[in-house]
């Protein structure tokens, strides 16, 4: 099949899916099961408000305030709640600290569990079988593909989100950032750094 042919059938399939979503929305609105304004509001929250900037603020606070870092590692829900971040897919948040001895990385091999209140909705690769199948089995090779080269002496711990807990990684604070304020530190923190597939 030519690329053009493939794209064409893909487009048709997409159109079919889009029409089916529209049909479902029409039925549910007519029955009063959902209302259109609530749908719009939901999309807006997760497309424009809830994202990895939340997690980055938490990380920056932990880097600058040892008492906060201690609270964060002991009770993720309460410490993250201090920022007003809570709720769906984050009722039981746990923050895991990267150290000189251990690098940590998060996955959900069975589906796509991810800490929404601090990282927002997950990227496609996180939800895809290639990442889910490989990271538990060959984490060192996968991390190298992501550009994270770890010394043999450093252990890797993979956190597979199989029940109600949701995980966020607290990356190590980069050298040479001693003079930076919280806000500037937060700018350094990436989504992948908090999944564990990048260093900060």
């Amino acid at each position, binding site marked *: 099949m030519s690329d053009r042919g493939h794209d064409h059938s893909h487009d048709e399939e997409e159109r079919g899916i889009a029409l089916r979503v529209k049909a479902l929305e029409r039925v549910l609105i007519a029955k009063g099961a959902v209302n259109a304004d609530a749908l719009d509001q939901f999309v807006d929250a997760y*497309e424009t408000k809830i994202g990895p900037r939340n997690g980055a603020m938490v990380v920056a606070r932990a880097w600058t305030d040892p008492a906060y870092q201690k609270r964060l590692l002991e009770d993720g829900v309460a410490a993250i709640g201090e920022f007003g971040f809570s709720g769906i897919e984050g009722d039981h948040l746990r923050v895991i600290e990267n150290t000189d001895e251990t690098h940590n990385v998060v996955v959900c091999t069975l589906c796509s569990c991810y800490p929404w209140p601090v990282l927002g909705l997950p990227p496609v690769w996180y939800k895809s079988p290639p990442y889910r199948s490989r990271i538990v089995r060959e984490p060192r090779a996968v991390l190298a593909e992501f550009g994270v080269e770890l010394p043999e002496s450093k252990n890797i711990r993979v956190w597979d989100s199989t029940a109600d807990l949701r995980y966020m990684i607290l990356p190590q604070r980069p050298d040479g950032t001693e003079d930076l304020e919280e806000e500037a530190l937060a700018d350094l923190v990436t989504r992948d750094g908090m999944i564990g597939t990048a260093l900060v």
Partner: protein
Amino acid sequence: MDGIHDCGGMHGFGEIEREENEPYFHAEWERRIFAITSVMSFVTLTGDDQYRREMERMEPGHYLRSSYYEKWLDATISIATEVGLTTEDELAGGPIGPMPEALTGNPPAIASEVWQNIHAGASKAIPDSGVPQCFQTGERIRTRAQMGHEHTRLPRYARNKVGTIERAWGTFVFADTNAAENRQVPVHVYSVAFEATDLWGEEASDGDSVVLDLFEPYLLPLDG
């Protein structure tokens, strides 16, 4: 259920493809089904265990070919159909019937309360259930070899393996019975650490580990 979704440790899925500056949604219909699924649950009172059950029932080839939000669409239509919120005829443009009697008491989400709804979350913790805790931190356990043909959160790669209880989290709704029978049974959840070499043999590095959160019915005493 030994389905295609349970892919931890499998070979052959190819490269991890990443997109620079990836948007949260790749099409308008993805936005809509994301919101429909989330908002509809206020009326159906179904949760993630039911959605996962439906996605796991997809034909394996279709599961792999379909995008993430296509799986949401399939699962949401299945659940809406199951509770009488839609029919194929209605989806095809036929006359739309009334809300099923059994659901009329569940108020739908409204826009002004969406943020409250998000913050309220959907915890399945059952504090103070009084259910005795069978395992203690530091104890070694063996996971069960099989969990039957229904929905389970014990992945294949971690079955019949020896691990160590690192932390007990109290009782939560057991996903397996919730998905199968909509029955909310409180069971203890533990973080259990496995040596990577115990899971993958010599190809793993000494010192590496994998931690899973496991429901107590998945665990057996090591000498049991």
